[in-house]
């Protein structure tokens, strides 16, 4: 099978405009007959479901949480990018497009990324019209901040809760459609299978997580907006429930998986405190604007941070990357922290942490404030007091969160941080229309692979989720459903539904009948450790080969020794988790295979064999400038398909931040 990305011909600027004015339409009466299933209610899912409901489609949404409003988009902190150029600092659609392609280390599609940049401005308009309370200046206009990897201020934000405000906006639009009867919402439901009829996705099998019952739902099309798979590492900044199950079921039914090994490790997270750790918490990238990152110059230095004099500190990012300093992109900052800790310079009890220090920012801001107030010869204490006030106004909520978790006061003692798994650039392969290789099955938002290449820039995930849901799928879905207006709703007693439901119930019965001795959580932790050690921030051939064997053995053990308490037909979170962990184990193997195949370092994928003399990532454009799209062929069998990436406009170069 050859992959057809369906990028429209014509100049970069004209592709989406031409598509929109020439795609097929569905008239309102026919829309009312067409049913669409949306899995996941985060930014992509809620915005898609609301927009499609407004157009008149009959929509059903599914989420495993108790309300659509709790999808993990809610936890995004920093902001959302848009090429508005409100700051008059030279931003444009082209610049946002260029920054995103470069930030992704030249592993994303030009056509998709340009469209993303093009609709970014509409997103901000739409959100403001919905009542999203973005930060504003005293003149009443919208405020912007800067983010990593760019030279303009294009990030819109709502304090440290931008994801929450955007999601609530989309959720409200969704609830309005529920009230109007255009959307039916199913909370505490999890999709466990795609139903295929005559080669097309025509519905799902979902499990009601309260009663345990399996349900059959028909749809002319199925949209997967089910997020990323960072929890394959067990510890990540994802929510506890975030999972790959919907995407993995689709994969096993024929949807190719694109670039599974492209994962983003975020440099500033609160470090692991012990074996009990259940998840990791991100500290916004915005903290690197003012904080300085350092470790002691001496290995294994056990002194308290404030007892280590200035000349005995190594500000390693400023030392290695003088041009960008503490503001290098995420992948670079993460690797540099790992390098120091591996070399024995880490801090804290675990020695797996570096310091993020605000002392000099407090002093700098304090002096500015003292000048503003006209204080002559202010005391050191006064300067510190004034400086703390400024830092509190900018980052107060983050500092408070840090203190709640660690019990340490970051105004007095430098924060300890360490990189953590945060986002997955890989996902289901989709064409320009967001359709997977299974007709009728679409993937939106983090669930697809399309726009971020090998590394995502800060504040771009929210942009992509909403772009896909509000502004792309309403057109591209119509273009495909226009051919389906004569397809009547397929009754759910159709043999395909019966067979799919049986597949699901057989698997659940099998899981419950194992009655082994080890908990689901324990298997998940073991998988996470393999993935983090051998397919994490740095990877090599030997480790990846070992990981593949270890994961195969783990899968065998899981299916013969997992213990799931409780019953099938009741509220049983352990069973829900077992279903998800079983899929994570299979995905983990594919991720390692993909990482092993890609003999180069690019973005978040760092293969130790492919680095420059001073430890920077080395791409192999002649061999690997392609999307690796994997086809499922049976247990542990995956076939690689390549979609070559063609750069007509941007010329790939080696990234340098020195």
């Amino acid at each position: 099978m050859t992959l057809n990305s369906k990028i429209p011909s014509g100049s970069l600027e004209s592709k989406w405009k031409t598509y929109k004015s020439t795609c097929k339409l569905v008239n309102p009466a026919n829309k009312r007959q067409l049913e669409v299933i949306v899995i996941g209610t985060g930014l992509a899912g809620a915005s898609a479901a609301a927009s499609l409901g407004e157009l008149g489609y009959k929509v059903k949404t599914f989420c495993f949480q108790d309300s659509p409003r709790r999808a993990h988009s809610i936890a995004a902190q920093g902001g959302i990018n848009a090429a508005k150029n409100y700051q008059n600092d030279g931003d444009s659609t082209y610049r946002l497009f260029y920054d995103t392609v470069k930030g992704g280390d030249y592993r994303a599609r030009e056509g998709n990324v340009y469209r993303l940049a093009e609709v970014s401005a509409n997103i901000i308009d739409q959100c403001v019209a919905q009542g999203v309370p973005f930060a504003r200046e005293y003149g009443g206009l919208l405020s912007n901040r800067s983010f990593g990897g760019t030279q303009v201020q294009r990030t819109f934000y709502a304090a440290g809760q931008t994801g929450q405000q955007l999601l609530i906006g989309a959720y409200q639009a969704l609830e309005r459609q529920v009230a109007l009867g255009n959307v039916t919402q199913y909370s505490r439901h999890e999709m466990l299978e795609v139903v295929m009829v005559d080669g097309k996705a025509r519905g799902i099998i979902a499990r009601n997580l309260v009663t345990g019952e399996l349900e059959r739902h028909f749809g002319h099309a199925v949209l997967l907006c089910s997020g990323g798979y960072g929890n394959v590492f067990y510890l990540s900044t994802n929510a506890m429930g975030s999972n790959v199950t919907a995407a993995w079921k689709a994969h096993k039914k024929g949807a190719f998986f694109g670039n599974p090994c492209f994962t983003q490790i975020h440099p500033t997270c609160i470090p692991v405190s012990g074996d009990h750790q259940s998840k990791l918490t991100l500290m916004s990238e915005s903290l690197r604007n003012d904080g300085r990152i350092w470790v002691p110059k001496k290995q294994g230095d056990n002194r308290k941070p404030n007892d280590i004099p200035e000349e005995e500190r190594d500000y390693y990012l400023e030392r290695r990357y003088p041009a960008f300093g503490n503001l290098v992109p995420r992948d670079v900052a993460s690797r540099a922290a790992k390098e120091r800790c591996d070399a024995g310079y880490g801090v804290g009890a675990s020695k797996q942490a570096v310091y993020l220090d605000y002392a000099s920012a407090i002093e700098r801001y304090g002096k500015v404030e003292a000048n503003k107030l006209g204080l002559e010869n202010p005391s050191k204490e006064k300067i510190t007091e004034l400086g703390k006030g400024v830092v509190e106004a900018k980052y107060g909520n983050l500092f408070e969160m840090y203190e709640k978790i660690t019990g340490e006061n970051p105004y007095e003692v430098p924060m300890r941080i360490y990189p953590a798994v945060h986002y997955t650039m890989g996902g289901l392969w989709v064409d320009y229309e967001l359709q997977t290789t299974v007709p009728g099955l679409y993937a939106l938002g983090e669930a697809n692979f399309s726009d971020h290449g090998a590394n995502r820039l800060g504040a771009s995930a929210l942009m992509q989720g909403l772009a896909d849901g509000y502004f792309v799928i309403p057109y591209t879905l119509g273009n495909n459903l226009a051919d389906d207006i004569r397809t009547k709703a397929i009754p759910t007693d159709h043999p395909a539904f019966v067979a799919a439901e049986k597949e699901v119930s057989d698997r659940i019965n099998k899981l419950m009948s194992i009655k082994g001795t080890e908990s689901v959580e324990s298997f998940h932790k073991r998988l996470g450790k393999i993935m983090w050690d051998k397919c994490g921030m740095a990877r090599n051939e030997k480790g990846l080969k070992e990981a593949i064997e270890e994961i195969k053995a783990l899968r065998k053990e899981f299916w013969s020794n997992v213990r799931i308490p409780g019953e099938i037909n009741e509220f049983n979170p352990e069973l829900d988790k077992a279903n998800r962990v079983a899929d994570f184990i299979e995905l983990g193997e594919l991720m390692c295979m993909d990482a092993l195949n890609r003999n180069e370092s690019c973005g978040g994928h760092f293969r130790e064999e492919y680095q420059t003399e001073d430890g920077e990532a080395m791409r192999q454009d002649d061999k690997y400038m392609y999307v690796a799209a994997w086809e499922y062929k049976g247990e542990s069998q995956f076939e690689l398909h390549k979609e070559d990436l063609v750069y007509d406009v941007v010329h790939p170069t080696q990234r340098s931040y020195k």
Partner: protein
Amino acid sequence: MEHYNMNLTLKVWKQKNKNQQGHFETFQVKNISSEMSFLEMFDVLNEQLIAEGKEPIAFDHDCREGICGACSMHINGRAHGPWHHTTTCQLHMREYKDGDTIVVEPFRANAFPVIKDLVVDRSGFDRIIQAGGYISVNTGNAVDANALPIEKHDADEAFAAAACIGCGACVAACPNASAMLFTSAKVSHLALLPQGDPERSIRVENMIRQHDKEGFGGCTNIGACEAECPKGISLENIARLNREYIAATFRGGSKNSV
């Protein structure tokens, strides 16, 4: 900060489903680190129960960073436990000392039926939003985001109200099990913005009607909701809701409401 380990006695509400009667059960947990979060302590307990061949305790949780609003325990008589402006998932075990007994119940309200153990059904909140907690604007109709300046003070107030995470602590804390703080936060958020102005009458009337229909109690200005709210949603929002409601009545908004 010095870290320590502790042994605790937990008295936890167990309830098979909404139709069966619940009861407290006592559990012992050992070697709990002061660095754990409250929910990680529950993870330890659940792993212990699974190892013993018993059923773990069901509780709602997801983001574990205080923003999704899923976690919901009533700890020693307080929604989300003793820490100010903190959800259960952000409460950490350094609050407790060796030998402590902790009583954990679900959020209690008629409008929040228990699903299992500590898990309750809060879908009433979705239905209150469906009744009017939105601005009726279809995708694609928006003017430029800066076409309409909004006074910073109003924008900040709207943001403060919009910070509600829909966890239900206000209901659990209120002796009347009123959801007025939740409802008023949404009414305020939208009424403070010019975009929300056209629907302000119909919105407040319909949302209050749905609030009452769900079986939430009336507000008698006790203020426990504000005290226990993990996001610091202010009582002022309830005052604003009342003003909105009275104004709507004068404007004859009711003829538009359903």
